[in-house]
């Protein structure tokens, strides 16, 4: 039976306490904190993180598709999935697509992947969802929205979670919307949205699913489903006849926040981290209707445990010092005009160097075996000409050889930590260290690669690999 072969997740390292948001607007907010993408992260880079987590131990060559769901893509026109595919070094001859415009994107992608596998048109399909929405300052959304990502590899061999069935419901109900010209999401009175939307549509899909499989709510081991906030989540669980204590997977509103399209998917990953063979899991998403899936965990789950997933990423965090840095990271306020020359980019260069920029291929000299980055014509060690093989460096780790911390760089999170890294298996890589606590940066510290926005220039996001202290 086709199903989930592997899973992965990502939560950015920064958290903003609701207390800090409340302090900004002099109001008291609910407890907890939310995950905030670093200034060099967006839904695309978080998607890369989740996909790489999910690919741990998997054969990248067998992935025949990548579907990426988000409502906060970096580009409105220009696919994100193709860049995620390139960064994660999946094959070029596969189907990539973005699924947007609905909070239900993650499950739509899963259904499409499932259908492709069942139809035999793909062996394995990667499904990823990521969200980095920018809520209006001082809105209810601001306190609740968090950033994060999840990914599932769908296939029909080595399946860790059988997908026994699904039920889909489409609805023209309008709850939250955003027009292209809108800066922020809009919504209606919360009581209407809750009573007519959340409490009816998703439970209706779940009940349709259970009926189809002749099951009742008590047959569900764990339910991972979407809700906009903790209170509504609890009310929806009751409406579906689920016991909050034993049957409901915590959707992490107090620690991550509402990650939109990625929320139910991340909650499912959290459930899978705890699941045992034989467990029956309900996975349901909401938005313009609802999708509900009936899942059954297999013995194979034990073989896909070694992931950072939700648990690993949740435990690894840095608190933002206050609202100001968050405001700067999300560009909520216009800053002082720069006097330095504007940054520029060049599409021909990005295209020419794509293998080296996106999947971080360096070269190994066939004459002297030395690994080097960026690419050369003449070996920088032995001066042999054009005698290299390509070698992927994005999954390598290294140790800091030296570093500096620039307080005046054109960067939101200062200081900008320029880092020279000697890779454990040879080669040296020079880049910027991100997601770091500057008091802990030192020569010799181990680091790993992470795909980030290196700069914005000429109207483009220029993605590249930075390094970070080993996350977890």
């Amino acid at each position, binding site marked *: 039976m086709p199903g989930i072969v592997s899973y992965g997740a990502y939560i950015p390292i920064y958290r903003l306490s609701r207390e800090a948001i409340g302090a900004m607007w002099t109001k008291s907010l609910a407890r907890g904190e939310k995950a905030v993408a670093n200034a060099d992260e967006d839904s695309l880079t978080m998607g890369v993180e989740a996909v790489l987590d999910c690919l741990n131990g998997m054969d990248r060559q067998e992935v025949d598709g990548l579907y990426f769901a988000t409502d906060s893509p970096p580009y409105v026109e220009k696919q994100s999935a193709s860049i995620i595919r390139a960064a994660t070094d999946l094959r070029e001859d596969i189907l990539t697509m973005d699924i947007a415009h609905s909070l239900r994107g993650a499950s739509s992608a899963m259904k499409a992947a499932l259908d492709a596998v069942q139809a035999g048109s793909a062996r394995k399909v990667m499904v990823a969802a990521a969200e980095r929405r920018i809520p209006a300052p001082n809105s209810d959304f601001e306190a609740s929205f968090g950033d994060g990502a999840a990914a599932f590899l769908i296939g029909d061999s080595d399946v860790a979670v059988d997908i026994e069935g699904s039920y889909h419901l489409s609805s023209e109900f309008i709850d939250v919307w955003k027009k292209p010209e809108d800066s922020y999401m809009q919504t209606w009175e919360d009581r209407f949205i809750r009573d007519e939307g959340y409490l009816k549509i998703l439970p209706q899909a779940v009940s349709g699913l259970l009926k189809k499989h002749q099951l009742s709510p008590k047959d569900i081991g764990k339910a991972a489903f979407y809700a906009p906030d903790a209170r509504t989540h609890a009310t929806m669980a009751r409406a579906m006849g689920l016991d909050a204590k034993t049957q409901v997977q915590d959707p992490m509103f107090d620690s991550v926040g509402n990650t939109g399209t990625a929320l139910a998917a991340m909650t499912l990953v959290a459930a899978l981290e705890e699941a045992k063979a034989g467990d029956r899991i309900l996975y349901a998403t909401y938005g313009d209707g609802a999708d509900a899936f009936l899942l059954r965990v297999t013995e194979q789950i034990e073989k896909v445990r070694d992931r950072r997933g939700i648990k690993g990423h949740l435990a690894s965090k840095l608190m933002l010092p206050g609202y100001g840095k968050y405001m700067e990271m999300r560009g909520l306020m216009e800053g002082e005009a720069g*006097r*330095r*020359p*504007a*940054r*520029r*980019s*060049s599409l021909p*260069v*990005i295209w020419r*160097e794509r293998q*080296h*920029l996106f999947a971080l291929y360096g070269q190994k000299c066939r004459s002297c075996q*030395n690994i*080097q*980055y*960026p690419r*050369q014509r003449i070996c*920088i*060690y032995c001066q042999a000409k054009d005698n290299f093989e390509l070698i992927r460096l994005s999954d390598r780790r290294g140790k800091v*050889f*030296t*570093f*500096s*911390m*620039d*307080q*005046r*760089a*054109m960067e939101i999170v200062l*200081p*900008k930590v*320029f880092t*020279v890294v*000697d890779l454990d298996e*040879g*080669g*040296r*890589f*020079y880049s*910027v260290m991100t997601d770091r606590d*500057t008091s802990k940066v030192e*020569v010799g510290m181990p680091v790993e690669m992470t795909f980030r926005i*290196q*700069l914005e*220039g*000429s109207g483009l996001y*220029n*993605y*590249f690999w930075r390094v970070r202290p080993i996350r977890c």
Partner: protein
Amino acid sequence: MESLKDKVAIVGMGCTPFGEFWDKDPVDLIVDAAYEAFEDAGVEAKDIQAAWVGYTSPDTAMTGIILSSALQLQYIPVTRVENACGTGAETIRGAALGLASKTYDLVLALGWDKLKDAGFGGIGQAFPGKWHPVYGAAPEVGGAVARYALAATKYFSEYGLSPDEGKRLLAKISVKSHYNGSRNPKAWLRNQLTIEQVLNAPMIAWPLGLFDCCGVNDGASAAIMCRTEDAKAFRSQGDYITLKGAGIACGPGWGKERVNYGFTTWEETEAAARQVYEMAGVKNPRKELSLAEVHDCFSIAELIAVESLGICEKGQAKEDIESGAWEQGGEIPVNISGGLKAFGHPAGASGGREVYEFYKQFQGKAEDPSRQLKDVKLGLTHNQGGHPGNFVCGVTIVGEPPSK
């Protein structure tokens, strides 16, 4: 291969004060430096047969015309050179080659820069992303401070200095340079500093603070040169200097990306020094040199440069700095002028300004008698562009003409 030693003489020099000249444009700086040199040599602009001009300021057309139009040179060859912050050394070397080949008899080498019209401190990006929009664009690989700071971090770690010890050591270099500069009328920053002031200054790029850094500014320097056999037509023996050697080393780069690059030695400096020591016949620079003007764009740059020049054993700078070996009255005065630290750094002008310091010291014209060195015979100037792992370095040795 013949040595340049003593083939070429410098018979006139000019140097503007360096500073933030809101009321001067590039033409003002060029004219002021050139005319000081013309008057010093007793020549006129029309006597100049060829010129070399070096600068990095990007806002003008990148040609030699800036020099010919400023000085109204009439249809003579002008070669524009650039080696980033090491441009000055290359103007003098180019001029020397023109003379040694006997293509010309009297030439002008002039370096200038006007960096304070940019609206920000530090070296601007001439062409953002001209080489690589993601990997190589200047802000992504770090500004000059961040890149030199990589070397400071590594030097501390390599030689077992704690960050506090390392910063204190570097602070002594800046204190010395400001003390030297405070007595030099043409220097820009003439205030003296204490070690505590240096240590407490705002951080620019850890571990380098504000007073570990030189500022960029405006200025020009110029030299009138001829072949040594013609020098007496301009000045008496003992009043002009000859070129003992001029070395330039362009590194293969990629130090930040090459595992065998250590960050604590400037290989380009070592190579340029080898070239020039061989030309000049210098065996023991520490003993033979009367002074060294080294490229101290940052405190760590002076430290590593002095070691790389072979003036101090590697890893031994601490002993030298603590014993005062590089101070006036020490074994070898380093940056007796005040260096880039006290002068500021109009990139194209600094190399010539270093030679100007030797020229004046040699002539006994150091202005403030308290900074006049005695028995000045041989001087080394060190001028480099780029950043650790990616340098072009010029080392020039000038000295007393041969006695005959």
